[in-house]
């Protein structure tokens, strides 16, 4: 693509909005953080392209963690919730057809993993992972149970706030992102060293999902809204006109 072409590449990542690699409060980062400066380059086709995941990939229960690992007729234990939102880019447009994967602890704060030794029990009907492909306007929704907080070895008495991990693809590999969603009102949020790597209250708020009583299903499941924003592409005049923005 030439300088005058349609493709103007991705807007540079705002590193002031992103955590640093070296964050000693989160101890594991100390020996896992590059010390040299990142080398900055404009995006090329290698970063502006991305793998394709078709809707055909997704099974019927993939976005239902209450049932996708449960025995027939049974369901996972815990507060039933709906997580919904939109995947957007920095220009405000929805990102359709994008793969979202999510994983979480069960209602007791226990992950289904061989290396996990927390005394809280496993739920035989809960696997802890799900996935979906975003809709035409970037919207998504899945069902799960609210995960519990859990202790972890960092400081002498460290607890993670309840959270759901998200892995997100966009239309360019430059947009690749992994993040976590927190729940409105969780008193552990301000105490957590992993939340603490975020550089501003705004950044924490951007990862905290509010309860949405309008979307809540009576006698069924509470709803939490979580929008995710990926890097945007530099727009051209013609693109802006076409989209009518």
């Amino acid at each position, binding site marked *: 693509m030439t300088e005058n072409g349609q493709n103007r590449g991705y807007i540079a990542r705002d590193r002031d909005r992103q955590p640093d690699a070296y964050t000693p409060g989160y101890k594991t980062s100390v020996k896992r953080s590059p010390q040299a400066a990142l*080398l900055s380059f404009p995006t090329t086709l290698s970063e502006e392209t991305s793998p394709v995941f078709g809707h055909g990939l997704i099974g019927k229960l993939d976005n239902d963690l209450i049932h996708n690992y449960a025995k027939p007729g049974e369901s996972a234990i815990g507060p039933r919730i709906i997580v919904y939102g939109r995947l957007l880019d920095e220009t405000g447009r929805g990102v359709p057809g994008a793969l979202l*994967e999510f994983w979480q602890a069960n209602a007791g704060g226990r992950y289904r993993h061989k290396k996990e030794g927390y005394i809280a029990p496993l739920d035989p009907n809960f696997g802890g992972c799900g996935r979906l492909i975003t809709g035409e306007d970037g919207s998504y929704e899945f069902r799960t149970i609210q995960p519990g907080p859990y202790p972890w070895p960092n400081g002498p008495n460290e607890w993670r706030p309840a959270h759901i991990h998200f892995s997100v693809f966009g*239309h360019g590999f430059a947009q690749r*992102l992994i993040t976590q969603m927190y729940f409105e009102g969780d008193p552990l949020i301000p105490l957590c060293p992993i939340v603490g790597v975020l550089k501003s209250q705004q950044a924490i708020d951007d990862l905290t999902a509010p309860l949405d009583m309008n979307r809540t299903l009576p006698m069924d499941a509470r709803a939490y809204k979580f929008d995710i924003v990926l890097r945007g592409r530099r727009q051209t005049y013609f693109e802006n006109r076409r989209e009518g923005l």
Partner: protein
Amino acid sequence: MVQKLEYLKESPSQTAGPYVHIGCMPNFSGIEIYGGSDLGRSMKTGPVKGEEITVTGIVHDGMGTPLRDAMIEIWQADAAGLYASANETRGKADPNFTGWGRSPGDPETGEFVFETVKPGRVPFRDGRLMAPHATLWIVARGINIGLQTRMYFEDEAEANAEDPILTRIEHQSRVPTLLARKTGEGAYRFDIHLQGPDETIFFDF
């Protein structure tokens, strides 16, 4: 006061944590789901064009210890230099090659493996050809935002010498950290060092 620019801000990254495999490679982590197959375990869906290669490596922390809980992703062009992407406009990529793979790293040794093809050359922004390369993306506990690097090939000296990115790196002594070493017929080694004297070059594209 001036008018407001109406842009949203990219969501902040958070670490993938120690259990990234539950979400991204559940069957590898022991959760039988999604029909038993994890995304990205195979980059080939049939006979592929070009030279088939195996890339192995280990991600080391600043103490030289292998990361055994990382997840490594690869994204690359096919043998003709075309991406299997919805927005690839230069032609149609090899239909049997996804260009994208995921490796969990061996639970004991940390070694990652990609069964792939040697990528073709892809144009840089100004039309000059870049040397054959793959994008690698590394996430793990303790990594706050996914680390992006590129794997070039040591045996592509001529192409590397004119690569628009490699030639613009100030500390040329670090360029070898981006070169996969040929260790046999169709076999390449690409070790990654997060820190230390051999620290891999990481990019901010």
